[in-house]
């Protein structure tokens, strides 16, 4: 980078060697936060199998900087709620959430965590947003790993933009309305 010329020491910087840029602090912090999510997996039910699948080498969400699970809520900032939350489990979930250090985010993995699913009864919390604020909902019973990865990227977008309103992972296109895709043929023909 520098070179000697003559007897005095001079540092000459070529234009292509400039490696600094300016930014604001908050986007820089958000950029750092979104690629170092320390997750707390709160796994209660069968969606945990799909969680293992998406954390395994084939889908591998450690690519997104969400690699290290922390089994202490004090060391984590992303709460994965994976599975059905019963009324008896709700105080535990609430307490885990309150123990996490801010800034913290919550991802509802699967239909049961998002809405209670088909458990519409005395025993099940109808969605974790009744207990803790939720950032991203990933529907599915269980969700496809691709949907989970999309939920994670959606959360990263929200961290970068500072948006805290809840967001739902939605399909880019609906195979039921696009029969030419040939993905699903036994589905209901269309939804208005």
């Amino acid at each position, binding site marked *: 980078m520098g070179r000697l010329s003559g007897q005095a020491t001079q540092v000459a910087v070529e234009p292509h060697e400039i490696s600094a840029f300016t930014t604001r602090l908050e986007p820089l912090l958000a950029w750092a936060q979104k690629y170092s999510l320390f997750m707390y997996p709160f796994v209660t039910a069968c969606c945990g199998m799909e969680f293992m699948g998406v954390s395994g080498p084939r889908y591998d969400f450690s690519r997104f900087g969400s690699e290290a699970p922390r089994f202490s809520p004090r060391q984590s900032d992303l709460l994965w709620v994976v599975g059905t939350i019963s009324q008896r489990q709700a105080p535990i979930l609430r307490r885990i959430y309150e123990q996490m250090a801010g800034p913290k985010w919550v991802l509802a993995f699967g239909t049961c965590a998002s809405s209670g699913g088909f458990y519409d009864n005395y025993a099940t919390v109808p969605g974790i947003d009744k207990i803790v604020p939720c950032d991203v909902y990933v529907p599915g019973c269980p969700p496809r790993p691709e949907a989970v990865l999309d939920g994670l990227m959606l959360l990263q977008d929200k961290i970068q933009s500072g948006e805290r309103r809840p967001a739902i992972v*939605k399909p*880019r296109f609906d195979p039921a309305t696009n029969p030419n895709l040939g993905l699903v043929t036994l589905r209901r023909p269309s939804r208005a």
Partner: protein
Amino acid sequence: MAKALLDLVARRFPGKVLESHAAFGDETVVVAAEDWYAVHAWLRDDPASDMQMLVDLTAVDFPSRLPRFEVVTHLVSLRLGHRLRVKARVGDAEGQSVSIASLTPLWASANWAERECFDTLGVSFAGHPDLRRILLYPEFEGHPLRKDYPAELAQPLVPYRDVPNIEKVEPFGPYEGMSFGRMTHHLPRVTDPKAIQGRD
């Protein structure tokens, strides 16, 4: 094979078998609630019956019947390879005085089964060593599998958050089981199928 065991029970307890039937090989006897323990003790210990295993113990609520509840056990003999279902009817129309003898002295598996039955249906088992709730929490009031328990009534331990737009969403909505993607993202939504097919 059917009926043989029923005849055995009827011979041993004359006049105490209120009802019996055998449908598709499933043999059932209905006994009076006061004979509950004696019948089970005999079924376990008699060599011709030899029921070593209590598979299940539960109850059924029939609101229109009197007595209202029907306590059911499923017994199996591992040595002889036969099964028997035993029922007894207890309880009045208001769901009070639902009590029957506990079978925990006979089979250890009756312990948790009777606790579950007490928890969800409110049948109290006389002589049970530790009759308290097993699935639900101690703060829960009532017994949720009784037919007069309101279907919509939840008893949350944590008060629900008081914020808008968190009502229960449709569980199997149009987004269920669909392929992945983000409509909320800035990526344009793919609407033309040919654009995707051309990618390969």
